[in-house]
């Protein structure tokens, strides 16, 4: 019996040992093949942005340690060098989009530091920025001079653009590619939040669409941007070798700034100013009729309205009026702050001679209200909450609608701009700030 037990144990140990040896051999043989299968799968998206690549060497992988690269932003998931020197491929992932779920992309940057391929690999946001948007990055260097944001899909397109920017930052910080040089137009348009705050959304990003130049010969204007809320235009213009940024508000008042951001309206070539002013006048959407009708109704039927100049107002305010009802004078303002989805929140305010709000209304209080159900709004009560507020008592809190923050923040912005416009219009008669 003992002998039998010993024999059994020995047989099992032998079988075990033999199979362990065979398995070890098979593993030595198959392990490199299995590993290369796995990395081929991982590298497939890189090949799709850089099809002519011979192979990739991993320089950085967020899941692996031992990378020699420094200052790699969180967005960057992987940096791979193409082995024949074509450039670099990067995997990027950002949670800065609208839903906060990761937007993922792969991009290829050639040896000159220009984007040679870019592909969106995961996109969780419901509002699509369009198939052409990633394509607009092709050929761009780190300055991304010719890439804007998509109006109405700002969060997601900004997240995408910032991710690309982070990718470049990692490459540049590690000396893999050189930094691109921003174009004059790009540098000029970066001044927009400072010189035309009316074009800027809640995130401080100027919202505009490039408009095609039409209807005549243009000597100075190179590019024109139409504000997303319709409250004016921004022009990139050149006179000789100097570039300028010109802005025109909804009333057709224009100002010109040089590359350093200095106001040169008074000293710039008058023909340039004339060309800009004429183009703005020809293309500006006129809101006056609608504004006068809405503001008149807020005061009384039959009230008389006279337009006031807004020469120095570059906020969201698009119209200012002196309203006479019998013997009483009021000031009416219309403003278009950017609200939800960068749609203009069109608000109307009537102030008395002391600058206290008498009445207010809006075309629509909750932009795209169908999407939201968790707000409660008693419109009459909400409007009444503004009555009597002056620039001194106004804090912005009064406009808040819980559950519709973006829309109500736009109302708050509009009110702030209206108080400022009131000050400009009354204290200086619209002349100088």
């Amino acid at each position: 019996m003992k002998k039998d037990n010993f024999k059994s144990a020995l047989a099992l140990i032998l079988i075990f040992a033999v199979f362990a040896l065979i398995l070890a051999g098979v593993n030595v043989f198959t392990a490199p093949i299995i590993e290369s299968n796995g990395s081929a799968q991982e590298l497939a998206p890189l090949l799709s942005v850089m099809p002519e690549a011979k192979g990739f060497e991993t320089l950085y992988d967020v899941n692996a340690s031992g990378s020699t690269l420094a200052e790699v932003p969180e967005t960057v998931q992987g940096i791979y060098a193409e082995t024949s020197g074509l450039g670099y491929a990067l995997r990027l992932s950002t949670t800065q989009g609208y839903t906060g779920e990761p937007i993922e992309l792969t991009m290829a940057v050639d040896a000159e530091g220009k984007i040679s391929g870019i592909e969106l690999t995961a996109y969780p946001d419901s509002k699509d920025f369009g198939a052409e948007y990633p394509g607009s990055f092709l050929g761009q260097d780190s300055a991304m001079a010719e890439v804007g944001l998509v109006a109405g899909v700002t969060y997601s397109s900004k997240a995408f653009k910032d991710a690309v920017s982070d990718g470049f930052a990692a490459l540049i910080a590690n000396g893999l590619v050189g930094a691109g040089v921003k174009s004059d137009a790009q540098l000029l348009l970066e001044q927009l939040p400072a010189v035309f705050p009316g074009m800027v959304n809640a995130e401080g990003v100027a919202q505009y669409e490039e408009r095609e130049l039409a209807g005549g010969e243009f000597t100075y204007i190179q590019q024109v941007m139409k504000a997303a809320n319709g409250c004016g235009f921004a022009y990139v213009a050149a006179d000789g070798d100097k570039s300028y940024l010109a802005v025109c508000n909804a009333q057709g008042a224009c100002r010109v700034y040089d590359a350093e951001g200095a106001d040169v309206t008074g000293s710039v070539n008058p023909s340039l100013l004339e060309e800009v002013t004429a183009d703005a006048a020809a293309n500006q959407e006129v809101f006056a009729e609608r504004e006068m009708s809405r503001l008149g109704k807020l005061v009384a039927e039959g009230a008389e309205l006279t337009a006031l100049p807004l020469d120095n107002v570059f906020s969201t305010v698009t119209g200012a009026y002196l309203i006479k009802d019998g013997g009483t004078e009021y000031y009416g303002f219309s403003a278009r702050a950017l609200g939800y989805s960068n749609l203009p929140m069109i608000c109307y305010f009537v102030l008395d001679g002391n600058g206290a709000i008498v009445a207010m209304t809006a075309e629509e209080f909750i932009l795209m209200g169908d999407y939201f159900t968790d707000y409660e709004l008693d419109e009459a009560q909400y409007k009444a909450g503004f009555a009597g507020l002056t620039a001194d008592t106004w804090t912005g809190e009064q406009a808040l609608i819980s559950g519709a923050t973006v829309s109500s923040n736009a109302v708050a912005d509009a009110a702030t701009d209206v108080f400022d416009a009131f000050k400009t219009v009354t204290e200086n008669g619209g002349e100088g700030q």
Partner: protein
Amino acid sequence: MKDNKFRAAIAKNPVLALFLGACPAMALTTGLIPALGIGCAALLVLVLSAAVMSLLGKAIPEKARVPACILVVAGFVSIVQLFMNAFLPAVYGMMGIYLAAAAVNLLFFGAAEESCGAGFGAALGRSFMTGLSFVLALAVMGAIREVFGSASIAGVALPFLENYKIPFLTQSAGGFVVFAILIAVINCFDRGERQAQPGFAAAAAGLVDAAPAGEGE
């Protein structure tokens, strides 16, 4: 009847008559490709372990046979697994856990145990036939479920069936239904002769009695 090999093969079909290997048969017959994948892997493991067990059979004491079978089958399953992962990564991906789980499948123990001490040629032949009928059963099941459940065959779409497909068949419950129908068809051929068949079924039954925990599928 014994001379009727075709009938005997059906009556001894490991999946449809003896219900061995039912776990992969359900899980991996959503399509023809995974069915053939696990079928061929199983055929290979069956033949190899039968060959080894027939050679070692006499040297292994009676009481060490079951653990020896476990060792041999698990060893070959691991080897096949590594080779599939290396050379057929796509098919390997479809196998999921079921290829590894095959290491504890009674189908293999039955064949390996039966081969202990049997002649090398006989063991090879018998395990090959068992493996082949396993492949056939899975292929038929996989084809039926893929054609009628996904309107495709081996991944190639069959557009004329697109509007008539029954997606239920690709789900687990649909697998049971197809399994049951095939068993019913087999029973038509079998007509109770299975009980009279010695050998494989008896060996399998013995294993079930010996290790009831093994049939956790």
